[in-house]
């Protein structure tokens, strides 16, 4: 088929020398995830209070903490179980762009709902 053009394929193939993640890493991540689960359940039973940012704008800490723990767990799964930490830049960019568009969907839609109560100009 093609003469194996080394100089063009070198970069792609050898950049990621198929890193095999060790079971020890997997085990530690498993532990971290289970601890995170326990933590988030425990936190939901405690009233963590709120932060009055401005008049009519309050931030409740419980959902923030719950989402933060969930995001951390997700990050661990993505980086280690899904090997993204050991993947090419392209994979990392792909994952990032997925999150970005997801956040645009939620964020910009919510921007309509949050500002409806602001009234006329």
């Amino acid at each position: 088929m093609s003469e194996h053009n080394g100089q063009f394929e070198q970069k792609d193939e050898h950049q990621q020398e198929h890193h095999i993640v060790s079971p020890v890493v997997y085990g530690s991540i498993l532990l971290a995830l289970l601890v995170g689960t326990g933590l988030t359940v425990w936190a939901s039973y405690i009233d963590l209070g709120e932060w009055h940012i401005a008049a009519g704008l309050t931030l409740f800490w419980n959902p923030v903490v719950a989402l933060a723990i969930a995001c951390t767990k997700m990050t661990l799964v993505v980086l280690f179980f899904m090997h993204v930490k050991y993947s090419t830049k392209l994979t990392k960019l792909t994952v990032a762009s997925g999150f970005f568009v997801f956040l645009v969907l939620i964020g910009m839609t919510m921007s309509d709902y949050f500002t409806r109560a602001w009234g006329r100009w």
Partner: protein
Amino acid sequence: MSKSTATANGAAAEVHHEHPPYQRHHFESVEQQADTTNFAMWLFLLTEIMFFGGLFTAYLIMRNWYYPAFVEASHQLNIGWGTANTGVLIVSSFTMAMGVWSAEMRKKGMLVLFLSLTWILGMAFLGIKSIEYHEKWEKHHVPGLHWSDASFLNPASDPEVYKEYHDKPLAPDMAEKAGMYFFLYFAMTGMHALHMIIGISLLTFMIFRARAGAYTTGHVTYVENFGLYWHFVDIIWIFLFPLLYLISRH
């Protein structure tokens, strides 16, 4: 590595180039095939992120608007089952990752073991889910099909939940919004469960193939890419759990 000769009229002579039997003809190398299919699976997962994204958007808006109803409705979910399911899925992600490791290390027995464990845990998840769904049906908390506002108009009528949370009775217009919560509950966990069922079906197929040694000759892409899918389904649950079960238990 591979050669071919161009004949005068441009047609390639049929040449047998040495490549593993699982390498498709339009790929130059196994590495290219593995790299390509891995990237393709990630793109597919992006579509899944956006697919669930619509549901998350609807949830966030409704939760903001009807917070009291959402709080009381979420109390109706059994936290024991929910936490157990979360644990089940997390462990299944671990066993799946170990399965990928086994395939990479060409250990057929361990691969079959870990895939089977993942399968069992997946079934356990669905089993617990069906217990929970059944309970919802019994309590008339299935909007559109089998619904009653009673538990929210008068929380005391539901003793086992009431003694834990002492919810206040909701006004009728807020009480009916618990129906909105449960619709989103069933839509999101149902969509998630559908993805689990697809995953388990693929796993069944894979276990048979693994036993035949298909994945322990160096061709790990199928297992690896399926693993990505499985972890993704786990991540969805990692978010569904706090959003649905842990709205406020204090």
